[in-house]
Each structure stands twice: as structure tokens, then as C-alpha cells.
């Protein structure tokens, strides 16, 4: 099983564990840009792609602040929502963006999302943070996976 398949299974498992509609991952590339890496469904891909194109959105804000960003309704007017991003990710309403930190350095952002608006209470935010910690460990294991890294075109 390659890194993509492992990540696919882990994201799906985390969304299930968290009880949300989907999970999406953006990681910093070699040029310190957040890049859309994967999502559990089309809505997640749209969310990440819209943020990557706009250079804005909850994941971007989470990366900039190094903290959690909880959005009740992405379609709401700024500053509570991100209407420009929402316009290209219509199915997505609520988003919880969790910064992924490894050794005090940001490596990416994990987004959980739902298709209905919702509040993210403190207990839910804490659970999200723990899942972020877990994903960092998974990414470290994948990074140590020599076979995946050695052949970038292979996946």
C-alpha cells in the first residue's frame, strides 16, 4: 500500500471518528506554500482548491495564526465567513481548521467540514487538535517511508 492509500484511509477514518462529513489536508511544499494534498470527497477537494487559488480561507488563516480556526458558516460575510472561498466550495458550510505542528514548526493544516452550519464547541475543538496531533505522527511515519519518497512519480 502506498502513501496515498494510507493517507486516504487515515483521513476517512478521522472524519468517521470525528463525526463530520469530511476531512481535507493541505501541506506546505518545498516553497513554504500550502498545497491541497487530499480530501475524503469532492467537497473537500473544492474547499482546498478554492483556498489554494484564493490564498485565503480558514486553513490559510489557521496557518498564519498557528492556531485553530472554527467557522460556523463559510458562506457568511467576512470576517465570520469566507464568501469568496465558499463560492467555489458550495457544499461546505462549517469548517474547523487545525494547524499541524511538528517540532514547533507548521507543516500543514487539517480541515474538518460539514455540509450544515454548526458551532464547534471547546470539547470538539480539543478533539480536533488531538486528531491533528495524530495526523502529524502518521505523516512522520509516511515521511520515513523511503520507498514512497524515492519515487515521486510512482504513487
Amino acid at each position: 500500500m502506498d502513501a496515498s492509500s494510507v493517507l486516504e484511509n487515515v483521513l476517512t477514518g478521522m472524519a468517521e471518528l470525528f463525526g463530520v462529513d469530511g476531512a481535507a489536508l493541505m501541506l506546505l511544499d518545498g516553497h513554504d506554500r500550502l498545497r491541497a494534498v487530499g480530501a475524503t470527497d469532492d467537497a473537500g477537494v473544492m474547499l482546498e482548491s478554492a483556498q489554494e487559488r484564493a490564498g485565503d480561507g480558514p486553513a490559510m488563516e489557521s496557518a498564519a495564526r498557528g492556531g485553530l480556526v472554527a467557522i460556523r458558516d463559510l458562506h457568511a460575510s467576512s470576517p465570520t465567513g469566507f464568501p469568496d472561498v465558499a463560492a467555489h466550495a458550495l457544499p461546505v458550510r462549517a469548517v474547523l481548521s487545525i494547524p499541524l505542528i511538528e517540532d514547533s514548526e507548521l507543516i500543514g493544516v487539517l480541515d474538518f467540514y460539514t455540509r450544515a452550519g454548526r458551532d464547534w464547541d471547546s470539547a470538539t475543538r480539543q478533539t480536533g487538535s488531538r486528531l491533528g496531533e495524530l495526523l502529524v505522527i502518521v505523516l512522520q511515519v509516511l515521511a520515513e517511508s523511503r520507498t514512497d519518497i524515492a519515487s515521486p512519480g510512482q504513487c
Partner: protein
Amino acid sequence: MGFTRGYGMTQIDPEALVASLRRLQKDRSATGIVHHLERIVQVVDRLFGYSGAGLMFAEEDRTLRYLFATDERGRSLERAQAATGQGPCVAAYAGDTAVTSVDVRGDVRWPGLPELLHPEVRGVAGVPIRLNGVPVGTLNVYQDTPHEWQESDTQALHAYAHVIEQVLVAAMEADEKAVLADQLQYALDYRIVIERAIGYLMGKHDLTASQAFTGLRKQARDSRRKVSDLAAELLGEQGPRNVANPDHVG
């Protein structure tokens, strides 16, 4: 972007993933699967709010041995099951299914356990960890009071165990299976050295097992050393040697 669709609806951009993983790999040496597993188990009880958690893995003869526990109480749970060959986690492994106990101290299924358990180990749940569909160990959690486990609890534990399985799969991609097995075997072996060192400290300083374990861990942390190395030094012997990669574990 080049997203590819997985077996379900999941979509991953392999090129972006590999670029980011390559960045992550820079300037860091591999820490080894056992270290990652320990961290994952430490996250599990903070995630669910349990009193503690642990991992047990099976040896070649299918005997479960404890690999890691988040505290002394959890350690007693795994040690008691390894010693008696019975308990919720042993049953979870043998039956390849989730097994729970509202209060393991009064559970008639495992009469040999209570006398070996820390008194604060009460509600226990174990779920199998599988590789290629075959159970290879268990993820165990406990509560320090009797606990009525709900189906949602075991579903969440199964999902978490599934993440652990994915980590094992990824590690197997990184290292040949034999090396992974060596690392796990090494971890299982060095626990014996730690157990012996705890017994030594208990006898010498009139400590409880919990005090001895906590003290050993603290001293290892303060001196930035592996617990297993410190334990071996206390016993005046060399720790178990990992032939495959001595830097990977501990």
C-alpha cells in the same frame, strides 16, 4: 493539481503529497515505529478522556505481550494479562473482536486478574489491531471507575485501531517486514529489562511498583536517556540489542 480517486470517494494528489513528505523528511533521522506507536497511544487517552491506554502485540507463538502503556496502572493491566493469558485484551485478540468489561475486578470471565491488577483499573475495553486482516495485537483502554461501554465507544476505538494499522502498513513500506518485526521484538524484550529494574528498585528502596516506574522514567527523561538503557545500567548489564537498527527504538 492531479487528484486521483481512491477506492471510495477519497481523492489524493500523490505529487503534492510526496513533495510535502520530502520536505518533512529533511534534516531528521528516522525515529522508528515503536516510538511512533507510543506517541499514538499517548494521544488516544487524551482524545477520548480515558484514564489510560496501552498496546499489546503478539509474538510468533501468538502469546500477547505488552508493548506500551501510558502509566503504571495500565502497565499492571497489560502485565496481568500477559502473565495469566486471560483478560479482555487477550479475548479481543483471540476472538478478533472488541471486548469490554464494566469492571474487570469483578468480572467472572477472568478470575485470575484482580489480584495482579492495580486497584484503579476498573472499566476496560480492548480492540484488535490487524495487519492484512489478521489480528497482530490489541489497543487497550481503561477507566479508573466501573464504566458502561457504549457501542459508540467501541466504534471509535475500532476507528483509532484502524489508524494504528495504517501506521504499521506505512512502516512496513519504509522497512522490510523483518526489520519492523525486529523493532517490535526489541521493544517487547526491553520491557523485560525495565520490569527487572523496577523489581530491583522496589526491593532496594522499599518502593511500590508505581513509585519505582515513575522514578525510573523521570531519571531517564532528566538525563535524556532511554529508560531501557538506564534500566540495564541499574542491573549492571547491557540492554537488549536491536541488530537491525539500534537507534530506532527507545
